[in-house]
């Protein structure tokens, strides 16, 4: 079983990327998700939850389309009634079973005096009293102190509702089984929650759960954003000015772990960006909703790369952007051909559906013979079927989130990101009339792209026809659309780098 553990706001954004990648059919068959964040109302997590809920709704309604292929196992907040469709929420586990660090020690009545002294030695009074329901405020030491109790909490079965306990139980069951056990952790090393979580959890799995057969991978994200504003003077919070120092300390810590033999990771992905995006400072809770970033996508890809490969030997991968080249293109992504094909197929399918086909559903029903695939697969069935926009509400909801995710990443387009050319998707809109730009092919016409989609949708050979006949009408349509857009992507998309070099964008 594959398990993805995401820590903190950065982990939540990486998780959101994983959902989008899995929607494109790039994920593993099954994936268990676990979120660690003291800030249980974190806005980034809420957004990831919304994407998951929409994903699950689509998965249920549009089966076997080639999209939404990964089955997710996740924990919902304790005591929450079974969710209605499209309203699932991800549980976020707060490892700190107290309101503050001081409370944590007070609760431990047996060792209060001794622990109090240790606390005074290691933490300022402000740190001891700061409420941690909004996360660890850029102080990994606070989270590390809480996670030191993980062994104790994780080893007991007295709190079945506790998130950590639920994860421990699930991993124990995995380790007793015959299948391979892979665990991937994603989080930043320059903030609070991620930095304090990655190592303790991996140690807990390897040592306390006796998880020798578990393969553990980590995406350690180094600073890729800065804050334009500052938290109030003297306020305990993550501050951009500390990011570099925190990263340096983290790398030194991981080097120490490696050299001292206390190393529990099989794969380590260092991911960063050398031109940090400037973001407005946001407090914790619902306010903390950072726009999606290209680095989040890299973290998601690292996760999928880890689960896809059956590597027995330890690996360390560095994914980042060199400063020499002016553009970030698909070729900069690990496993770019599959990733490009998958993401562009989903993107083009969304564009063509929303921009062209869906608005014509009613007209197609009135003139069923005019569109061959519609006539053959829908209108000529007994009883005749039509396509209705109402059947695609789940798809539309997901597409809106997917579109927003792309647009937020594309704000980088002004500078370097060239996955989708800036003309196709930038600012606050996608130009639905220019699918050729999304393909990175301004040399062909939008009409040619659309015509190509229709042509491929009409190519319904015998086996496909039989396969489609067993599906519901929306699934049948989406499967056909996906096949057509995938063919088109594979036909038209050439190396962006080659074409840019040809256009003199940068030296070959």
């Amino acid at each position, binding site marked *: 079983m594959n398990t993805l553990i995401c820590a903190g706001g950065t982990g939540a954004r990486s998780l959101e990327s994983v959902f989008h990648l899995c929607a494109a059919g790039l994920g593993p068959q099954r994936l268990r998700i676990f979120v660690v964040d003291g800030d249980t109302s974190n806005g980034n997590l809420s957004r990831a939850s919304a994407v998951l809920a929409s994903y699950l709704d689509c998965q249920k309604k549009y089966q076997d389309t080639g999209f939404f292929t990964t089955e997710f196992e996740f924990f919902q907040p304790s005591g929450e009634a079974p969710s209605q469709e499209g309203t699932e929420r991800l549980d976020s586990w707060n490892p700190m079973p107290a309101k503050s660090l001081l409370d944590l020690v007070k609760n431990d009545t047996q060792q209060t005096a001794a622990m109090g002294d240790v606390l005074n030695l290691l933490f300022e009074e402000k740190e001891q009293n700061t409420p941690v329901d909004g996360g660890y405020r850029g102080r990994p030491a606070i989270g590390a102190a809480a996670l030191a109790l993980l062994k104790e909490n994780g080893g007991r079965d007295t709190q079945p509702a506790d998130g950590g306990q639920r994860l421990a139980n699930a991993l124990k069951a995995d380790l007793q089984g015959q299948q391979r056990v892979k665990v991937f952790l994603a989080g930043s090393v320059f903030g609070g929650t991620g930095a304090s979580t990655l190592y303790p959890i991996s140690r807990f799995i390897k040592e306390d759960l006796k998880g020798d057969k578990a393969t553990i991978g980590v995406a350690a994200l180094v600073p890729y954003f800065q804050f334009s504003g500052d938290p109030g003077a003297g306020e305990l919070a993550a501050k951009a000015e500390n990011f570099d120092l925190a990263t340096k300390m983290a790398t030194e810590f991981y080097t120490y772990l490696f050299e001292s033999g206390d190393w529990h990771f099989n794969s380590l992905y260092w991911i960063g960006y050398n031109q940090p995006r400037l973001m407005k400072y946001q407090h914790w809770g619902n306010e903390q909703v950072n726009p999606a970033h290209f680095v989040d996508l890299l973290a998601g890809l690292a996760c999928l790369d880890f689960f896809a490969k059956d590597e027995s030997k330890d690996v360390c991968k560095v994914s980042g952007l060199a400063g020499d080249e002016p553009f970030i293109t698909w070729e900069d992504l690990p496993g770019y051909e599959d990733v490009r094909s998958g993401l562009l197929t989903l993107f083009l399918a969304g564009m063509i559906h929303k921009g062209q086909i869906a*608005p*014509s559903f009613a007209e197609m029903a009135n003139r069923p013979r*005019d569109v061959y695939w519609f006539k053959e697969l829908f209108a000529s069935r007994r009883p005749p079927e039509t396509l209705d926009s109402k059947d695609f509400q789940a798809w539309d909801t997901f597409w809106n989130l997917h579109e927003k995710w792309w647009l937020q990443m594309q704000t980088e387009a002004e500078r370097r990101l060239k996955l989708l050319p800036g003309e196709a998707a930038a600012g606050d809109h996608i130009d639905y009339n220019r699918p050729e730009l999304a393909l990175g092919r301004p040399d062909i016409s939008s009409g040619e792209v*659309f*015509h190509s989609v229709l042509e491929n949708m*009409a190519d319904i050979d015998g086996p496909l026809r039989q396969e489609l006949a067993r599906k519901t009408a929306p699934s049948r349509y989406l499967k056909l659309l996906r096949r057509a857009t995938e063919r088109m992507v594979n036909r038209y998309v050439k190396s962006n780098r080659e074409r840019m070099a040809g256009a003199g964008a940068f030296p070959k």
Partner: protein
Amino acid sequence: MQKLLFWIPQRPPEGVAFDTWTTVLQLLASVAVVLIAGGTFVTLLIYKRSARNLKPPDMHSALGPYTPMRWVWLSLVFGLLEMSVCVGIYPPAPIEGELAASLQLGLFVFLAVFVLSFVGILKIDALTPAMHRGKRSLAEAFRLSGQPAKDYA
């Protein structure tokens, strides 16, 4: 060959020698056969090219008229050609007979090319890109108004 023109009297009009009449009928029948075969072939060829070049740039155009079907009206040209040939080689005879025969032969060739082309378009799938196959119909051939889809060829 002249049996093809079964409705035209085998007996020559008054003042026309039997051999001359037989030769004229055979010639007209041969020309009709050539025009029907050639006309059908040419019509199908042009239709195929036209259908392949028809690339609707958007859904509105895809739901628009199927202009390649109009090429079946090319059969009119072959009908007129047959009429011209008939007028040219018809032996000296009363003008009413010549006109009547020309019209009949022209109509015959026109109908033959029209029907054969139409049936060919319907039955030979290779002529029509899959995306247009649902639209092949007599109604589309008669649908003379409407903006055709842009040709990207």
